[in-house]
């Protein structure tokens, strides 16, 4: 797992400003070329050795419109791979058209030059696309969240390390059973009835500092670090969930949407002894700020009235 320090620094190597310079250059090139194709199609046709006709003008103008759109798309988000791949597809189409032209039109030398130029740009487009693609699907960028809890590190660590009690703050967990370094997790995600279960293996455990685990037979792993906050007794808790290739879709989305709320509830339970509800949040669906009927309230697992309250240390 990648070290947390990599993410502390604001400037990550793969986010360095120079990395999208090529994409930006290609975006501006698209705009310039598209503008020329729309404005002066006949002149361009002659330039690449094709006899202008109404058909070639129309085709060139359409190509120009496509180039303008591609340029805007690339410049709006130079790190996104999709607009760049669209450019590659456009290049292939251009090359095919030029190949078609070479079978029937004049001035082979100029046309060959045009094909070489488009070929060069295509190569650059492919390079830029692959670069952007690599960054976008970088499997090692973990989901990260952090929170500061007004309790000493040892206490926060100990509460987290007590995996069997995590379902109190993580709504979707049914239960967690611990057997040495192994733990068995049963969850009901998305408030549904379907149960998902997995085993996790503790990979690192430094009291008061780090807990890390690997989900058995998967590429999902997690790591929590605890550190004393500057100038206080509070604890900074940072959670990284890493979801490897193959699981990148739903698991990562689930982790992202859950971890933040989990940490907030974890903080609440440690600091105040309970997960606070409001009239609006006692139900799953949007609800105005007015009391619900008792039978609706009874469905919420966090309603503590019927449970023995957690003692809060002042």
């Amino acid at each position, binding site marked *: 797992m990648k070290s947390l320090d990599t993410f502390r620094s604001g400037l990550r190597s793969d986010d360095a400003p120079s990395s999208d310079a090529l994409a930006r250059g290609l975006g501006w090139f698209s705009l310039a070329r598209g503008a020329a194709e729309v404005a002066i199609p006949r002149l361009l046709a002659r330039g690449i050795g094709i006899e202008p006709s109404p058909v070639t003008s129309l085709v060139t103008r359409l190509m120009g419109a496509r180039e303008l759109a591609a340029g805007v798309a690339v410049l709006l988000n130079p790190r996104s791979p999709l607009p760049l791949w669209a450019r590659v597809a456009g290049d292939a189409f251009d090359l095919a058209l030029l190949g078609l032209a070479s079978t029937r039109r004049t001035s082979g030398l100029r046309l060959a030059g045009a094909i070489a130029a488009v070929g060069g740009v295509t190569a650059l487009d492919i390079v830029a696309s692959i670069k952007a693609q690599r960054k976008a699907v970088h499997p090692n960028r973990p989901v990260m969240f952090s929170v500061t809890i007004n309790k000493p590190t040892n206490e926060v660590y100990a509460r987290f390390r007590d995996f069997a009690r995590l379902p109190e703050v993580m709504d979707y967990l049914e239960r967690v059973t611990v057997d040495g370094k192994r733990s068995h997790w049963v969850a009901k995600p998305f408030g549904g009835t379907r149960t998902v279960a997995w085993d996790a293996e503790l990979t690192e455990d430094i009291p008061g500092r780090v807990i890390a685990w690997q989900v058995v037979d998967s590429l999902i792993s997690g790591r929590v670090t605890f550190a004393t906050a500057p100038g206080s007794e509070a604890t900074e808790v940072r959670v990284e969930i890493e979801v490897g290739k193959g699981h990148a879709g739903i698991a990562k989305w689930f982790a992202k949407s859950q971890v933040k709320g989990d940490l907030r509830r974890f903080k609440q339970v440690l600091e105040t002894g309970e997960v606070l509800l*409001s009239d609006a949040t006692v139900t799953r669906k949007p609800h105005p700020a007015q*009391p*619900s009927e008792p039978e609706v309230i009874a469905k919420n697992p966090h309603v503590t009235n019927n449970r023995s309250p957690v003692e809060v240390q002042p």
Partner: protein
Amino acid sequence: MRATCWMGKQKVSVERVPDPQILNARDAIVRVTATTICGSDLHLYNGYMPTMQKGDILGHEFMGEVVEVGKGVKNLEPGDRVVVPFCIACGNCEQCTLGNTSACENSNPTPWLPEKLMGHATCGAFGYSHLTGGFAGGQAEYVRVPYADFGPMKVLKALTDEQVLFLSDIFPTGYMGAELCDLTPKKVVAVWGAGPVGQFAIASAKLLGAERIIAIDRFPYRLKLAAEKAGATDVINYEEQPVQEVLRDLTAGRGPDACIDAVGLEAHGHGLQYAHDSTKQKLKLQMDRPLAVREAIMALRSAGIVSILGVYAGFVDKFPLGTVMNRGITIRTGQCSVHRYMKPLLERIEQGEIDPSFVVSHQLNLDDAAHGYDMFMHKQDDVMKIVMRA
């Protein structure tokens, strides 16, 4: 129970809703004996505060009698008479332990809404939109009070409801506004807005020893109350007098040492500036009309303090940051951390230094809440502060 519900822009009605029940161990249920309509409720009423939902119970200033407590509440029992702070605070997080209860990190169960609008979450509050957690308010027969072992303050029967009710919000808020001005004897302070919060800012400035207190408003009856009861030494009716010039004259060209904005996002005024702000606000291009705070900044003495009590929701335009920077102006503001002011101010009331009931102008039945809102908004019948009882 009956409760005052927000039903849409400028529409409130008293509806039958389910009774509140204990949701968390640290909750209490309070039977409301007196509640009021706050100037900031008008921002909700007029639809300027985002995230309101039809059916939201309004009201964040209330007091009452404890009728039920959760298992985690040891300091209260049924029958206790309590005043409840409008802001909800846990008492355990770092901000609460520092006394900044209005910045409580745990009391807002819907933090993702203010995080989007304001960068970080605000505290929870009663009856004040879903930005502050979606808690039912106190303009009702009963209300659920979270963290009841930390927030509510017990008060003795010797004092009337009207004397202690305003400890829930406007007295501490006005007091904080004066306190933020670093007032010492011989200082001059100007207060924009002579509504209930402005009256308490003026009264508090007097308690803290300011030499000259200038009240600014457009309603003669409000200015009269400020001068006769709250303790203003001078008053300016901005519809009749040029505020900047009068302030300049009163301070021999210096400007007040401190200015308090007790107006907020629905400031009135005239001329191009007012037309600009109200048009932009109507078009949803800006959320607030910051006329009062702009004027306060321009009038202030160099290196002075502007204390903002008026509620603002989001983003403002034409903010005179150049003046703030070049003349070394300090801006201090915040939702009042009521918890830390309640006890010391209760002592001042008990010792007879101030009687907050001077702002009360009307007594209504809760069933007439809609009439109360309408009257308060249109400033009819010389309305100052409306106390409602179920």
